[in-house]
């Protein structure tokens, strides 16, 4: 029995592509299949066991940095015998890369194996919304922990909690420079002649909450940056070592005026109040609604859908489970099963899920990371704080389409003898496989070509 089109939509529009049998599981009641994933999410998949927590990473980085600069200050000839030798100058990079590869590999495994692909899609969406990118090498060892610690626990929680967790995470504070931002009038600012860094404040307004047209000015950015001074990462001898700290010594003293409201000097509370306001701001509701609709409905979602999502967000005070249910309930989400194009990561993961790949041989996870690099989406490496694009034109261009064809051909070649083309077509595409595709598959010059044609077909690359 061929699964209904709605089953394809459930496992692709809202999932990560069908593993063999998944279309059948979703077929009976696609919406309930999705809603069940929201009911009992696996908050911490076992694959993540053993990955380091961010405070440990931060403290190790600080230790390495201290040891390296100490070794530089002290010539080798004077090094006391018996003293442990200093770490190599590239030790920080190696430490970060090692953790990064483990994190990237673990995320690939989770996306490959998950029985709750909707949850993983939400993690990917919110992780992209609050991008922490290894384009800044300083967060190489923290980007994965950021997603696990700050994003994952809140994807069907409240937006306000998600926002706070993201902003206060060492990964974000370092990535967008707030850890170093210093009030010019603060004790440390006056003493060391250091000043403001507006990076986090600006992106919080432009990307994370209000949106670029959300009704704020440059003055608001500066004021918000002043409010957020002191929000930083704790050193080993401070409170909460390696985690969030509010430092009075770098906080800009005095009253701030932000978005028309007065914020009398209140230390950390100023930032908490400002973020609470932003989480409930109507512009934030609209901005999130538009992004959510772009992710789950269409590149240019109908204004009515955006308005509905914004209303749900506002009415439920940013209940992200309610927002997700609204997307599942939207008739528009089910109307055009192939409206969206898969990102490179979604494409690669879908291809591996479709063939029930197990990356249990040494080096296979690195091969997948290599493939993602070739297709332009290195894990945790979004080109800017705005994250990866969420429109077809960001993914499908002349180069990309050829790269994806090469990837499909290479994967098919490696799968030789394990995949039967017509079965693959049925279990991965089911009702949306076109006659043209099944004809092309039948006429393909080899099984390899047939499998590659399925993987490279428009219906496989869309969701």
């Amino acid at each position, binding site marked *: 029995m061929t699964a209904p089109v709605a089953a394809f939509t459930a496992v692709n529009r809202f999932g990560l592509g069908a593993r063999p049998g998944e279309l059948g599981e979703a077929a009976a009641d696609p919406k309930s299949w999705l809603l069940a994933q929201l009911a009992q999410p696996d908050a911490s998949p076992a694959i993540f066991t053993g990955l380091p927590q961010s405070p440990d990473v931060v403290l190790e980085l600080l230790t390495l940095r201290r040891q390296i600069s100490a070794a530089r200050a002290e010539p080798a000839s004077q090094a006391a015998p018996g003293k442990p030798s200093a770490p190599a100058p590239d030790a920080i990079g190696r430490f970060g890369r090692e953790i990064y590869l483990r994190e990237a590999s673990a995320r690939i495994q989770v996306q490959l194996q998950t029985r709750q692909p909707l949850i993983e899609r939400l993690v990917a969406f919110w992780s992209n919304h609050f991008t922490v990118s290894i384009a800044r090498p300083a967060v190489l060892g923290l980007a994965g922990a950021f997603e696990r610690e700050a994003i994952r626990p809140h994807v069907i929680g409240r937006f306000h909690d998600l926002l706070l967790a993201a902003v206060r995470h060492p990964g974000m504070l370092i990535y967008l420079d707030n850890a170093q931002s210093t009030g010019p009038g603060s004790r440390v600012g006056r003493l060391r002649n250091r000043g403001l860094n507006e990076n986090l404040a600006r992106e919080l307004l432009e990307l994370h909450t209000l949106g670029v047209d959300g009704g704020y000015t440059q003055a608001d950015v500066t004021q918000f940056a002043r409010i957020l001074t002191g929000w930083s990462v704790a050193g080993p001898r401070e409170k909460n070592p390696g985690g969030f700290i509010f430092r009075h010594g770098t906080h800009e003293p005095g009253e701030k005026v932000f978005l028309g409201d007065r914020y009398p000097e209140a230390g950390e509370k100023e930032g908490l109040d400002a973020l609470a306001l932003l989480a409930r701001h109507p512009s934030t509701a609209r901005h999130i609604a538009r992004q959510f609709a772009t992710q789950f409905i269409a590149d240019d979602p109908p204004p009515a859908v955006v308005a509905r999502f914004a209303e749900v967000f506002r009415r439920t005070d940013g209940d992200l489970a309610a927002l997700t249910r609204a997307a599942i309930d939207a008739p528009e989400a089910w109307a055009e099963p192939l409206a969206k194009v898969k990102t490179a990561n979604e494409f690669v993961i879908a291809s591996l899920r479709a063939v029930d790949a*197990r990356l249990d*041989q040494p080096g*296979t996870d690195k091969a997948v990371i290599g493939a993602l690099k070739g297709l332009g989406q290195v894990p945790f490496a979004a080109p800017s704080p705005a994250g990866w694009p969420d429109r*077809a034109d960001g993914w499908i261009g002349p180069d990309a389409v*050829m790269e994806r064809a090469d990837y499909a051909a290479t994967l098919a070649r490696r799968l030789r*003898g394990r995949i039967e083309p017509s079965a693959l077509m049925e279990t991965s595409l089911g009702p949306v496989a076109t006659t043209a595709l099944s004809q092309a598959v039948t006429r393909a*010059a080899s099984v390899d070509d047939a499998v590659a044609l399925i993987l490279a077909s*428009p219906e496989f690359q869309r969701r």
Partner: protein
Amino acid sequence: MLTRRRVLVLGAAGLIAVPGIRLALATAPTENRVVVVVLRGALDGLAAVPPYADKDYASQRGSLAFAAPGEEKGCLDLDGHFGLNPALGDLLPLWQQGELAVIHAAATSYRAHSHFDGQDMLETGGATHALADGWLNRALGAMPYAGSRALGLSVGPATPLILRGAAKTGSWEPEHIIPPASQDFLDRLADLYKDDALFSQALGEGLQAQAMSEEVMGKSAGSARNLNGAQYLTAAAEGVGRLMADPRGPRVAVLEATGWDTHQGQGLEKGRLALVLKGLGQSLVKLKAALGPAWQRTVLVTVTEFGRTVAVNGTGGTDHGTATVAFLLGGAVAGKRVIADWPGLAQEKLYQGRDLTPTTDLRAVLKTLCQRQLEIDEMTVENRIFPGSRQAPAMGDLLKA
């Protein structure tokens, strides 16, 4: 009709890891070597070895007919009746030295037109339906040898069906050369994309950009991809040759080449087919060189699932046909001969009115290799390796005495 034998399961064997080939010190059962080159997609035998002197050849082949040797658009001469495609000119010295024989009008027992099923039949050696393992693997298992080393070798991450089965085999892959999607595959993809504006426009521009950069470099469209495929084949052939040259190395190897399914723009002295033929010829010459003295004890055979139509189709190519050629190369081959019970190309002689009629059962050639070159006894070959092929007995005179 597709066989449902293959299952949609990725086994415990990993997805991407490629096991290295190990050379073992154990004694081999024979010093003879066999190389099987599988040409996937159906090689046009009438283009590879044109029967230029056949009275019906020129009229039946139309625009894809070669002129006689020496003339404009002429083929190379083999024996006054058959010629050689000029793109295979690298093989002419082997012909002169008696190391190349051609079996013409040959086919497996498969008579339909599906690539998959045709390749299954070719690789399993089945008579009417495909068996579960490859005939070459069964041959390895039947060699009088009880050692534990892998005597068979294939190239690439996955073992081709012809070598799959109970007997242990090894695999190897040239490093740093990963063949991209072939030009032929991209053309099929372009066809598949034509109803999707986004994908078809992107691929169209991608192909155009590729063609433009190649034009600047003075190459024909798609040649880089075909060249890359040929480079891979050359590197594979050279590597296989070196491994087989070693006394401790494998005795049987499989090479695979694609790009033969020339439905469009097949071309004559230039074009799609000429490009892949050129790559094939060059690779085989490299293989010979790499084998060194072991070449004298080597037989290489090229096999393909079926041939192509005699007539040109509406897009300058040929469609799926029946009989085709097999090339036999090596120091052990009794060469400089085109072995054919030539059926002729007159309309009434064609198989189903459109294909070259098969007059030689390809299994007869392969059985000869098993018996003479791999030293497997006749009973075993008949019963286990090519069951149901008694009507196609081994050919006595293919190899040197």
